[in-house]
Every structure is written in C-alpha cells, then in structure tokens.
C-alpha cells in the first residue's frame, strides 16, 4: 500500500513536470527552468518563517513570487545590464540558492528544513505524512493531495492556454500580431514552473525536479513531430520514469528521487543512441544502394 502511494505521488509529480517541461524545452528555456528550481529556495524558507509550517498556500505564493523574480532578474541583467545570457542565468540562480542556504542556517531552529531535503526531497515519507482534519479524520497523505492539485492545475493551464502557448512558443512575432502577448505568457509559464517546482519540492527536492522537467520532454522531442504527440509522449515517459525509478530505488535501497533522475537519463540515452545508430545504418545502406 505504501509503495503504491509513493508511486502514485511520484507519477503525479512526473506528469506535471513532463507536461510543463515540453514548453521549456521547445522555448530553449531549460536552463531558466533549472535556475528557477534553485532560486525558489529562499522563497520557500521565507514562506516557512512567515507561516510557521509547511502551509502549502504561503509556500506556493513565496516560491511563485521568487520564480517570477528570478525570470525578471535574468531578463534585466541580460537586457539592461547587457550581461550575456548564460552568465545572467548562472549569476542569478547561484546567488538566490546561496541566499536560501544561508537563510536555512540562520533560522535553523525555526525552519523545519535541512539541506538534504532541499537536494533530494523525502518522497519516502509520503505515506506517514498524513493530512488529518481538525475533527480528526484521516484524509491520507498530504503530499499526494498537493501533487494531485498541481497536476490538475497544470492540465487546466495547458488546455485553456493551448493555442496561446503554442503560438508564443513557435512564432512569437505572429502571436504578437494577432494580439497574444508573448511576455505575458512567458511569465505565466514561468509562474507555473515555479509553482510546480514548489509542489514537487517535498517529494523530489529542488534540484532533481529539473530532471523531471527536462528529461521526459527531451526524450519525447526526439520522437515526435507535433506538439500534441510530444505532450503525450512526455507524459508517458514521465510515468515510466516514476515507476521504473521506484523499482530501482527499491532494489538498491537508495534515494527514490535520485533513482528517478537516473532512470530518466537512461531512457533518454537509450532513445538517443538507438536513433543515432539507426541513422548511421541508414546512411551506410543508402551509400551501398548507390554503388
């Protein structure tokens, strides 16, 4: 039963990340997603301090704010400060992550967070971290609800904004002409990415969430020619990652999040190498048929 709960939670997280990540990969913003996942840390710590608990709403607000702030700061340094794009990402996220770790140390007594949890989450504790209502009814694992709500909102976001996301991703100029603001949708997407990062934070940690955001969409990108296909495949690879990752972690008794990231990387490498060798064979075949 516990295993099933963990797998379901992991699948929900992987699904949300996989769907959103498609747009990050297509917009060449994977590293911005990486930066956001690091930079929400101070937001999480501050939200902890203000609300005094792992109260989800203030966490989401704090981290969402930090996520958008990160995007703004990267853009500001790049456009106004004329700092090259890669360096503005690097400077911004390392600074905010350092700030987050410092805040954790300063408020060590008041904030129930440690550095390990930041790095790879505590999905193994999902079944024992229960949501118990004021009247004492056991509603089941708390993190499961967080992940489910997250996935629901991500799906709603993508369905409602499908046309806008698609247009601003593939042809921002045309989107501008027909009156869809690329900037607005960029910030909406980044806001969703930060929110997803925070929701997934307790399960997989702030850094490994990047693996789920990037690896399944990248694998799907190798195999698909349309956005809808890519979204579906990414979802599929996300679920596969969650299930196989859990199996691997169970086998060697290691971190579940770490195992999921490993599996995500292995799936990508597999697809990548198969395609590559297929191309090599196709090339040598066409050469032979010519002679």
């Amino acid at each position, binding site marked *: 039963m516990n295993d099933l709960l963990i797998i379901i939670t992991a699948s929900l997280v992987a699904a949300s990340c996989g769907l959103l990540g498609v747009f990050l*990969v297509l917009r*060449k913003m*994977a*590293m911005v*997603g*990486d930066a956001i996942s*690091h930079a929400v840390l101070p937001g999480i710590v501050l939200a902890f301090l203000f609300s005094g608990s792992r109260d989800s709403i203030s966490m989401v607000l704090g981290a969402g704010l930090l996520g958008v702030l990160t995007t703004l700061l990267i853009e500001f340094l790049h456009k*106004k*400060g*004329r*700092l*090259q*794009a*890669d*360096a503005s990402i*690097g*400077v911004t996220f*390392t*600074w905010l*992550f*350092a*700030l987050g*770790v*410092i805040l954790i*140390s*300063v408020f*060590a007594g008041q904030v129930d967070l440690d*550095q*390990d949890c930041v*790095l*790879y989450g505590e999905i193994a504790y999902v079944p024992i971290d229960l949501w118990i209502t004021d009247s004492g009814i056991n509603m089941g694992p708390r993190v499961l609800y967080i992940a489910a709500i997250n996935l629901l909102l991500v799906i709603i976001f993508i369905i409602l904004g499908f046309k806008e996301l698609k247009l601003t991703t593939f042809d921002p100029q045309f989107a501008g002409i027909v009156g869809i603001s690329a900037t607005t949708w960029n910030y909406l997407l980044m806001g969703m990415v930060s929110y997803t990062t925070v929701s997934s934070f307790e399960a997989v940690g702030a*850094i*490994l969430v*990047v*693996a789920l*955001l*990037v*690896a399944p*969409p*990248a694998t799907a*990108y*190798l195999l698909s020619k349309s956005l809808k296909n890519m979204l579906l495949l990414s979802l599929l690879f996300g679920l596969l990652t969650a299930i196989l990752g859990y199996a*691997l*972690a169970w086998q*060697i*008794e*290691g*971190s579940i*999040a*770490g*195992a*999921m*990231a*490993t599996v*995500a*990387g292995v799936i*990508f490498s597999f697809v*990548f190498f198969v395609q*590559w060798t297929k*191309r090599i064979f196709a090339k040598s075949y066409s050469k032979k048929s010519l002679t």
Partner: protein
Amino acid sequence: MTDLLEFLSLRDANVRFVVLGTILLMSSASIVGTFTFLKKKSLLGDAIAHAVLPGVCLAFLLQGEKDPLWIMIGAFITGFISTIFIDLVVRKSKIKEDTAIALTLSTFFGFGILLLTYIQKSGNASQSGLDQFLFGKAAALVGSDLYNFATIAVILLVVVFLFYKELKLLAFDPDFARSIGLKVNLLELLLTSLSVMAVVTGIQAVGVVLMAAILITPAAAARYWTDRLPIMLVLAACFAAFSGLSGAYISYTLPRMPTGPWIVMVISLIAFFSFFFSPQKGIISRWWQIRKYRHAIALDNLLKTLYQLTEKEARTDKWFSFEEIIRKRFFTDKQLQHTLQKAKNKGFVQCKNEQVYLTAAGSEKGQRIVKLHRLFELYLTEIVKLAPDHVHDTADKIEHILTPELEARLEEKLNYPDKDPHDAKIPR
C-alpha cells in the same frame, strides 16, 4: 575587530589552511572560468560541477575508502564524460544546448544522489564526509587538502600561462585560430580539462550546487571594469580571492554559518555592485550618460528652433512665446522648462514673462546646428544622391554629433555652398 586581526594574522593553523585553501581554489577556478565565460559556455561549468558527484561516489565504492586522489580521478572522469555527452547530444540530435546541459546535469546529479544514499545506507563507517561534496567543507580544510589544492592551482595557472595566447584566440576568434593552423579541437579539450580540474577542486570548498558561481560570477563582475583580458583575469582572481577570504572570516566568527554559500553571497554582491555602478558599463552610469546626451540634444534642438524663428521672420525684437517655439518644434512642457532653464544657465537665452530671447552666444550655437543640418542635407542629395524629401530625418540626428573637422571637410567637398536642397540659406 580583534577577531579580524586575529583572523588575518593567520596564527591559528586551522585558519591558515582554510584561508589559503579557499583563496587558492577560488582564484584559480575563476581564472579558468574567465575563459569559459568569454566563450559564452559558462553553464557548461554548472553541468560539470553536478556531474562530478557520481564520480566521487563511484571512486569511493570501488576503492572502499576516502582516498582524495582516487576521488579526484573519479570526479574528473564523470565530469569529463558529461561534457562529451552534452557535445554528442547537441551535434547528433535536434536537442538544443540548453536542454542538453539541463538534462545532463540533473540526471548525472540524480545518479550521484542515488549512489550517495546507497553508500550511506550500506553503513560503511568511513563514508561520513562524502556529502560534504554537496555543500563544500571550506571551514574544515586541513593541511593535506592544502597541498593538493596548491598543486592543482599551480598546474592550472601554469597551463593558462603557457597557453595564454592560444586560449585568448579560442575565446575571441576560434575561426581565425583555426585559419592560422591552431588545433582548435585540442584547445577546446584543454579548456574543458582545465574546467573539470577547477571544478573537482572547487567543489570541496563550496560544493556541487554553488560551484557554478565561482566559475561565472567573478568573470562576469570583472568584465564590467575592463575590456582587456589580462586585467580581467587579475580582477576576477582578486574578486574571487576576496570573497573566499570573507566567506572564511564569516564562518570563523559565526561558526554556525556555512562557508560556501557566504562565499557565493559575497562574490554575487561584488558582481551586482559592478553591474550597477561600474563607471563605464554599469547600468546606472549608462543610464546617466544617455540622460546627459538626451539633454544635450534637447538643448541643441531648442537653440536651433529659436535660430530658425529669428531667421524666418527676420524679427528684430527676437522675443518668442512658448507657443511659437512649440509650434515650430514639439517639446513637452516639462522638457521645454527644463531645457530653457539649462539654456538660461549657460547664457544662451533670457526669459521674461513666458517669453524667450536668444542671446548672441545662443544664436551662434543655434546657427551652427542649422548650418550642419543643411550642409548634411546637401551632402545627402548631392553626393549620396538621395531624394530631397528623404534627407531631413538623418540630418536631424547627425547634426548633434558632427565635429568641426567633419564640418570643414563637408564644406570643402560641397564647395562652400550657399543653399541647401530646400533652397534655404546655409548660414555662415
């Protein structure tokens, strides 16, 4: 204060190791980072930093103990593999570089975490301390670490010194480097190896996650103070060394504070200060220069407008109302007030009862602008052969920046003309 003196005197052996170790690490890593920064490949350093973790763990698993040499070798190998993997994915598939980097760093790091937790659960007693690679252990450097770091720092510096010219070419103009017969691929391999070495040592001070800051941030800060590579290298090294020192000092006085994040905090503050306040490239100073330039142009335009008014109406009184000025050339109220005030201070105009009078000095300056404008219009129609109705806008911009030398050459080229293309007199 006594704390600081005590700290700086380096009397305490532990303090000495920590201070010298972090300074060595930080400055040598930042020098390598400057080259990757200039090649616009800074995020590759971030990927390498994350990717050394599985190497550290594998070395430990195979060796069974925490032998620094093996751990460095293991870290070097997986760090290197990650760069090859990124390069391969970008070249052999439609995946873009940012995705390849994010993918590699997160999955390699995840694999590292998996191994780390596996080692921790397997209960090997000597594993304690492996997780120091995550956040660094600058505050716990000891003598033997120092010798290792010193060796690597010296190797890095010597290699950079020996290949200075080649690395410089590689950073600024790889095509030219290739054309004069340099082995660019080998040089890139060299730079990658240097980065991996810098990362492998650097993570012991600040940890995997923040290592990128040491490669990127000092170089980015230094870039704002100079256009010359040698100065940039020295500045980056100094910024990095200073932040290492400050980080060590902070965790010396406040033992609860983590050294690595404080080092990154200090270097980031230096960088943000540079981005905003550096005298030439800073955001504030550039904003200030643009503002100053705008005001100078507004003043030019005001004097030009007043001169044109006197010229057109051949008026003797030469007092003009605000409406007359705005009718001739549009100014917002605020702009006009501000520019008039400026012109008054410089003695170009006098103001009375919302009326403006152009003084002799103002007239002279206004006349010059009008002359330049008409000269350039004539140049555009006569020499560049543009239609007369297409030349005004360009002339309106260039009139503010033509120097007396260019003015003389224009006049000579056009044979000291009297009239512009619109049959207006060119004043002298």
